[in-house]
């Protein structure tokens, strides 16, 4: 999963800054895609995009903050590095609260920018890894039968086999068989691990 192609998406209204940044990042071996406006980027956006966004915070039309909000609404995972000007720190703070990875003030040093981009790409990779792990868990949960799901929920709630058997009016032996199937399907031997796995995808399950 980690060998997926990551791209640096540059959203910048200033033509010279955009052009120079593209050249710079390309010379550093990055895959780069540039957009002159937030609207252009949004038109192109898809969930499959991997990498990070280098986003000018002040732009005519839709500005960087607005784009961030729109992407958040679409559950984008792409880390955003805001490029700010002099005196934009309060804006940048707001942006961080909205989940931006970082911000950098213009004019910046190449090293600083590249470092931040590397960090953002790493975060993107992590997020994608976690996401794929969670997606795996969800996929596994989906393979459980309704009865197995029910038993698993009771296991997570900490009910002993005997209690489960009495409450579901089945034999304790049957509970044990379901239980071992659940552990097998979820790919774990430890109840503690199972609890962690299920809790980690609670939001995804509840969404459905």
């Amino acid at each position, binding site marked *: 999963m980690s060998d997926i192609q990551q791209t640096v998406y540059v959203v910048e209204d200033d033509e010279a*800054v955009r052009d*120079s940044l593209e050249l710079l990042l390309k010379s*550093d071996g990055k895959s780069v895609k540039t957009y002159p406006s937030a609207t252009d980027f949004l038109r192109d956006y898809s969930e499959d995009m991997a990498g990070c966004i280098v986003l000018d915070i002040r732009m*005519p039309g839709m500005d960087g903050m607005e784009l961030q909000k729109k992407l958040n609404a679409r559950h984008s995972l792409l880390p955003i590095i805001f490029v700010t*000007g002099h*005196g934009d720190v309060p804006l940048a703070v707001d942006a961080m609260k909205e989940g931006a990875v970082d911000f950098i003030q*213009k004019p910046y040093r190449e090293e600083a920018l590249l470092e931040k981009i590397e960090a953002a790409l790493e975060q993107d990779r992590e997020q994608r890894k976690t996401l794929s792990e969670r997606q795996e868990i969800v996929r596994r949960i989906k393979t459980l039968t309704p009865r197995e799901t029910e038993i698993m929920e009771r296991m997570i709630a900490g009910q002993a086999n005997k209690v489960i058997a009495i409450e579901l009016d089945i034999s304790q032996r049957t509970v044990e068989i379901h239980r071992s199937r659940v552990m097998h399907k979820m790919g774990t031997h430890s109840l503690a691990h199972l609890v962690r796995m299920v809790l980690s995808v609670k939001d995804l399950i509840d969404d459905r």
Partner: protein
Amino acid sequence: MTDQASTEPTVLLVDDNAQNLKVLYETLKDRGYRLLIANDGEKALTLARRHQPEVILLDIMMPDLDGYQVCERLKENPVTADSAVVFLSALDDVDAKLRGFSLGGADYISKPFQAQEVIARVRTHARVIRLERALQERNRELESDQTRILNAISEGIYGLDAEGNIAFANPAAGLISGCSVDELIGKNFFELHLLQPRPCSGNLLHPSTEGGETDPEGLPVQATCSQGIAEHQRGVTMHRADRSTFPAEYRATPKKEGDRLTGAVVVFRDISSELENEQALEDARNLVQEQRDQLAHASRMATMGEMAAGFAHEVNQPLTAITNYARVLLRMLKADEPDTELLARTLEKIEAQSHRASEVVRRIRGFVRKPAVGKEVLSVSALLEETRQFAEVDARHNDGGVEIHVADDIPEVVADPVQVQQVALNLIRNALESTRSAGSRASVEVHARMSGEGTVRIEVRDHGEGLPEDAEQKLFLPFFTTKNEGMGIGLTLCRSLIQAQGGEIGFERPEGDGAIFFFTLPVAAANPS
């Protein structure tokens, strides 16, 4: 003299013979005269002094004072001198008559007299004396008027003869010259006031045939005295009696009798305090101008302060690009076979960006320079375009931005570029701010069009919050503002600046939303230079 009784002419009858008096009285009574009677010389003199009769019928042969003596005494006294004395006497010789006339008698009636003759002569003399008295009264009034005027007038007035000698001077002339009027009379104008020898009278022989201008070499007043040319000069230096000097203004008018030039009337005054006042006024005007320029400059600085973040951005953009390109170049140079064409292209980009940065700096420096450069012939579209680039530092926050529409036929204008730009920028920034506050995405439109002969009108239209209801009364008042931040100086200053360019500034409420602010500027003269 104007007492009630004098509405009728008064006739004094003097004779020592009661019978004669009676006859005379009977002859003249009821003929519109006030009749007085004296039977000796002393009484006659007393009555004459008291009543100043128009006519005195005076008998010559009287005891004590005879008619001649009475006549003499009457003529000696100014109060009685103007009465017409008509001698009455039986004496009918020429010598007696001549003696009477030589003593100032007006006429002579022989005794025994004819009633008709007495009546006719009295009537004639009474009328003559009345007319004479009226004339003298009128003359006195005129003279006193004239004297009053000449005395009251603060200008010095001289009557000069053709040589420039002072024949007349009013009190003010003495005051200005620093000596008495009596001392002035007889002095020569040129010698006294200009410390110059009187001009060669040879000039008198060469009157100007052209009737033309004052000889530039000539002294003040000289042309008037010698050639009869009226003069008016201001700021000439004249001397006082003590030889100290004062700046003067004078008018010289030739005095003529028929065709003959007899001299000049010179009206002059000391203009020291006037010049001082003018200087003070000029100084005050300069001070106002200077302070307006300083206020304008301070206001421009304040505007720059408000726009500082925007300008920092404007400079940082090219600097960022330059830094990026430079890094790219360094990397390219480390390659084994650098792509020289790409290197060159990138260097060109760096150059372009550094121009861009210095352009921003140039624009800022132009805007804050001090003092303002003064009026120039300007292209309206270039000026507005420059201002738009300026304003767009702010317009980055507005979606619509600024649109400039300048009609093709707009001629150049005469104005101070910095100050006009300041006004335009102020109006455009206000419009942008109002648009922003209203949450509108409409652009701010700037139009330049002709407004009547010789005037260009520049209009800034926004679709913002519009104007407050009391805008007419308050908008251009100092310290009135609708903004939370802001001193309320902007528009007041704008008006002062535009008025200094000979233009007007104002606003309108357009149909629909927003506001229109406009100002006018005078078109440059058609003169190709």
